[in-house]
């Protein structure tokens, strides 16, 4: 970034040291300003639907029948928390929340652990047919989970998994693994070979290498995987509905009216529901720290 300013003052080396920094600073700002402005505009546009959702959730349903949600800006007095009140004062919601947490956390843990193990195996361990099995696994990415509903229903019935949280956790784990393995394997191959070689030469067994080396180095990828798996399963409806378990999505679904707009239920519920995955996102995204890998090479 200083390369733009560098060549010019190079001739007048000593004297304009102070001027150079100012000129350089201005150059740098000019180079950055369009980026800043662009990103601010993009950010604002991106937020509009979400702001709309929030505005919808604090307006009474009758108001939304004739005017759009932006009326909140011209008439802020219309805002009300009654939709949220109605939703939260229903004690079914607490249980639903707990169930959702068990499902989301449970399956994310399993996906991360199993996925990392498999990803490492495909990236750095040798065994016959490795590449073909890997391709087979990626192929499973395409299986739509609707097709597993019927055969799994019969299986769950036989093994009494119907209506259990474990049943849902395992189902989601299975359908999250292809992406997890794909992502982590591709990520792990980016780890420089020499690190692993030196560890192996030093006599470390695979398990040690996996825990002490691969996991820390792969943290950014693992963190992003965890975020996605968590929020995909946090928001699932059809699997829990079919197998008789009641997380938040199913519970909200049970609150909708058959006829008539249910936006006064959907909007606040969607908003409350998105706070947790957002919190998870915050907690994990700080693992995207640069230099993690650079540091360990030295």
């Amino acid at each position, binding site marked *: 970034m200083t390369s733009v300013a560098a060549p010019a003052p190079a001739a007048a080396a000593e004297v304009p040291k102070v001027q150079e920094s100012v000129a350089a600073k201005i150059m740098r700002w000019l180079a950055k300003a369009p980026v800043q402005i662009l990103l601010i505009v993009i950010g604002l546009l991106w937020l509009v639907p979400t702001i709309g959702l929030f505005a919808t959730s604090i307006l009474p*349903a*009758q108001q939304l*029948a*004739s005017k759009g949600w932006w009326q909140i800006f011209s008439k802020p007095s219309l805002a009300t928390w009654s939709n949220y009140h109605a939703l939260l004062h229903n004690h079914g919601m607490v249980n639903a929340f707990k169930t959702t947490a068990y499902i989301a956390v449970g399956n994310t843990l399993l996906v991360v652990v199993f996925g990392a193990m498999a990803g490492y195996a495909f990236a750095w361990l040798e065994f016959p047919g490795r590449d073909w099995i890997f391709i087979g696994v990626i192929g499973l990415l395409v299986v739509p989970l609707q097709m597993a*509903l*019927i*055969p*799994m*229903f*019969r299986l*769950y*019935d036989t093994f009494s998994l*119907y209506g259990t949280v474990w049943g849902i956790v395992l189902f989601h784990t299975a359908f999250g693994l292809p992406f997890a393995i794909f992502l982590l394997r591709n990520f792990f191959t980016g780890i420089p070979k020499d690190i692993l070689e030196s560890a192996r030469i030093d006599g470390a067994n695979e398990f040690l290498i996996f825990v002490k080396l691969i996991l820390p180095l792969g943290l950014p990828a693992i963190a992003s995987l965890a975020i996605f798996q968590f929020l995909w399963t946090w928001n699932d409806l*059809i699997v829990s*509905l*079919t197998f*008789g378990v009641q997380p938040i999505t199913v519970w909200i*679904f*049970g*609150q*909708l*009216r*058959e*006829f*008539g*707009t*249910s936006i006064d*239920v959907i909007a606040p519920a969607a908003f409350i529901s998105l706070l947790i995955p957002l919190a998870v996102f915050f907690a994990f995204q700080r693992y995207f720290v640069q230099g993690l890998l650079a540091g360990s090479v030295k």
Partner: protein
Amino acid sequence: MKKHHVIGAAIVAMVLPLVLIGAAAGRSATSGAAASGSARAAGVSGTVTFDGVWTGSEAASFGKVIKAFNKVYPNVKIKYNPLGNNVSTVLSTSIAGGHPPDMADIAQPGYVKQLVQQGHLKPITYASGVIGANFSQGWKSLGTFSGKLYALVFKASNKSLLWYNVPAFKAAGVKPPKTWAQLTAAAHNLLASGTPAFSIGGADGWTLTDLFENIYLRTFGPATYQRLTTHDIKWTDPTVITALKEMATIIGTSSNMAGGTSGALQYGFNDSVTNAFGSPPKAAMVFEGDFVSGVIQSSTKSKAGSGYEVTPFPTIKPGPGATGVEVGGDLFVTFNDTPAVEAFVKFLATPAAANAWAADGGFASGNHNVNLAVFPTAIDKANQVAMGQAKSVVFDMSDEQPASFGATTGQGEWGIFQTFLKNPANVNGIAQQLEKAATAAYKKGK
């Protein structure tokens, strides 16, 4: 089946004056039975799993029915599963997976027929007596398939209604139309007054089929209606062409529908109601069933009487069909036969079950022993009476069809009528498409 309807309806009409007496008698009868059978009732225990369509406040109302049941049978636990319109996915999965619920609520007789043919349902002949005591033969035969009683029609909605915006009618100087000619004149005046006449929710295909069926019923009568239902008459028959042409007089003038033709295609049922009763209204009339009032109350500020009112669907031709009522209903079916299930089914046929929900409003039933006093509003009472007084009652035709023709989004009847809405001039083309789809569905045996 058609004969039963006419006779059954006539019986209902004769029995109606006895409703109040019957209700009182019915109530004391059940409490008497409860007292003497309470020892037996306490002995019945078990769980009944129930997959139902109702969610939200309707599920709460059904909860009251369950509570009333538990007063009589305290040891039976009913597990109600609110599925909304995902009921077909979940039910199909559990049936194919080998473990269906004990009972389910299905709105389409056509689908129930399929299930009977596939041998999944258990007959409810043990409840025949109770049902016979409370429902006319017409209602009983709606639940009869292959000669056996399989389903109880617990709740029904009158779909032959017209809801209108009171201030808009006043501004146009129009009175609620009783005949088709009056409807056309009213529509003309409404358009001239600046408010389009019809609020069509074409994005939900079933609103279009309901309109067609009402027109067909009131033009050609219940006997012909039944023949079309069973595909005895083809969809290319001249009667169908006539009815389609009549329907085109409503949907054919783009300027006389809320949002024009393209709006009508994008507005769903809910939108069509808020369009008619929001302020300012985008149109003045909605054709649909008694469940419209629920939408008005939850989504608009319109009040009964001053804002909205209801009147029966206009008559078209004199005859038995002139005041015919088309109903939609919830059919309760059983997949398993246990003492707990039998107890629940028998209870549901009694007036006590219907009264428990009726008090919440938004309920109507073919049970002629219900207590009218329990119905909370004038509109609710009127709907219940209309159902009882109707000279002929027929079931929603599209619900009686095989599901792939009568109840599938974007396909079969629903999809083809949406195409009709796009181009109402193409009556013959639409009739041919309907016939083609119907033949294919009936051939598959579904």
